[in-house]
């Protein structure tokens, strides 16, 4: 009985790794340019479908397919930002919301028309079912463990990039004060393109990992956006490590909820999010400065 609950919490924590991957890209974009990409979830599903195409045509392992899919998504992100979203800068909050929402609906319906409504899954050849025994009846799956490790690796790299590298310094400067950063010679438009490229590169990893973990359809995107958003809010805006904690809290809430009653998994996650919003709106790990 107790072992079963410990196991549930453990699975939830590992699931949190996947949610942190989704949340990081969203958080990065909001941090740098103060916009929310409503097509975030659908772009991750697009990446998963691209991986399906790569796997089916080249016969590659889905992990290897990422070598193609992640740069492709990053390039798409750069193009999307520099060709479309940059044109909306300085026009207020409404245009970026509506344009990214438009893309969300376009991507969903284009996926429906291209790949039909059938659910798909990526098969990495056995690792998705392999598990590691921890003793006393507990075991963790290798794949959820790898997902969490990759999430931590990406967060550490991102943290290093933001704190140590010149592009990271430019991200921070733009995030603090866009106009002054521009006066100091930072090319905002190119920088925003890079941030979106980075975000969609990470989202590609998240989408492919999701596709290995579970089945997905053309309409799986919005839920991914909502989970990412909830992880960001639970963890606290502007905090990279908060996203990991937020993802873990959401993951545990969902697995525990699902164990209590099968229909209540996702709903419990949402309710925990609402409870955090009500009781601690700044999130669990908020920075002192808060602007949303």
């Amino acid at each position, binding site marked *: 009985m107790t072992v079963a609950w410990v196991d549930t919490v453990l699975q939830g924590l590992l699931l949190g790794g996947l949610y942190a991957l989704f949340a990081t890209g969203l958080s990065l974009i909001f941090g740098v340019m103060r916009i929310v990409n409503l097509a975030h979830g659908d772009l991750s599903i697009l990446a998963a479908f691209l991986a399906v195409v790569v796997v089916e045509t080249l016969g590659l392992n889905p992990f290897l397919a990422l070598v193609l899919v992640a740069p492709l998504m990053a390039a798409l992100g750069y193009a999307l930002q520099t060709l479309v979203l940059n044109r909306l800068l300085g026009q207020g909050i409404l245009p970026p919301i*509506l344009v990214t929402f438009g*893309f969300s*609906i376009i991507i969903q*319906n284009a996926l429906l*028309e291209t790949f039909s409504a059938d659910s798909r899954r990526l098969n990495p050849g056995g690792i998705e079912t392999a598990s590691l025994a921890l003793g006393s009846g507990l075991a963790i799956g290798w794949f959820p463990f790898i997902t969490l490790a990759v999430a931590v690796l990406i967060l550490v790299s991102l943290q290093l990039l933001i704190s140590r590298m010149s592009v990271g310094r430019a991200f921070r400067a733009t995030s603090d004060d866009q106009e002054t950063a521009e006066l100091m010679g930072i090319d905002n438009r190119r920088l925003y393109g890079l941030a979106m490229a980075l975000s969609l590169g990470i989202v590609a990893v998240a989408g492919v990992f999701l596709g290995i973990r579970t089945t997905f359809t053309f309409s799986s995107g919005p839920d991914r956006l909502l989970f990412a958003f909830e992880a960001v809010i639970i963890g606290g805006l502007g905090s990279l490590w908060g996203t990991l904690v937020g993802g873990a809290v959401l993951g545990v809430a969902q697995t525990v909820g699902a164990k209590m009653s099968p*229909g209540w998994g996702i709903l419990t996650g*949402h309710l925990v*999010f609402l409870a955090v919003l*009500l009781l601690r709106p700044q999130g669990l790990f908020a920075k002192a400065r808060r602007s949303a």
Partner: protein
Amino acid sequence: MEPARFRIERTTGASRGGLACAGLALIVLASLPAWGGPSSMRILVEFIALLVLAQMWNLLAGYAGLVSIGQQAYVGLGGYALIVLADDLGVNPFLAVPLAGVITAVFALPTAALVFRFHGGYFAVGTWAIAEVYRLLIANTPVLGRGSGRTLKAVFPLARETREVTTYVLALAIGVVALVAVYAFLRSRYGLGLMAIRDSEPASETLGVDVFRTKLVVYLGVAFGTGVTGALIYLNLLRISPDAAFSINWTAYTIFIVVIGGLGSLEGPLVGTALFFVVRELLSDYGAWYMILLGGLAVGVMLAYPRGLWGIVAERWDLHFFPIQRRVRLGEEEFAPRPPAR
């Protein structure tokens, strides 16, 4: 110094023409049951429902700056409120439609307490998340039929023609009341305050506009209107399920209609709704392509003409059928300034 000669213009030739056209259209539409078939009435109910949803969202996003992506919550709540009121509590189904709006507005109050903590893009995702919460709660409630939903049985004893004509007349009434209410609200001093908030929130606050209260009133009013429309939609369809009633598509249709037609005008949603129906009918054999086309059109309009198709018309010909703005005409007739009202 001679006082400046000016007058404040609120009514134009076009607006008198617009009123006459609207009156004429109403007479034609009101007589439809006498000469039109049931299919034309059904499609008009749908047209009116989308038009009201668009007007409501336009008020919320285009005027109050509350860009909600979660209005499907109120379509769904309105629809389910209709079923519960009519089938479980024995209320007359047609009377239940406006009551469903009241119930929806009651749900909107605690919802507002949560989503008003967000601004901008996070408000948009927050409203979307709450709509999902409502969908999942209803999909887990046995008396509401769980995931498979319910059928409106209260209208079964009625003759089919009676039901169709009454639904149509009710829809027409809802459409007229919604248009008049939005128009009257925007022309009132509250509407003026609302537009001041849209243009600059801090400036309007210093001038004495209660920003929070104004936004809350608009949010609740729009939830009421959206809930009534949700009830109307399911009075027309008779069959409800959580996935359909709380579908993001309700908000997608609405946003595409308003953005393409013209955000921040009353004429825009009318133009947008008409275009939506034309595109959908033309592409009815091509699956989801009409959504891709409309989405692309909305993105294109947002990039090139942020004021939408009606914005282009209004700008080029200075045409305003339903003018909301006050315009100063200099050197025309004398205007005696009144002491400022409190």
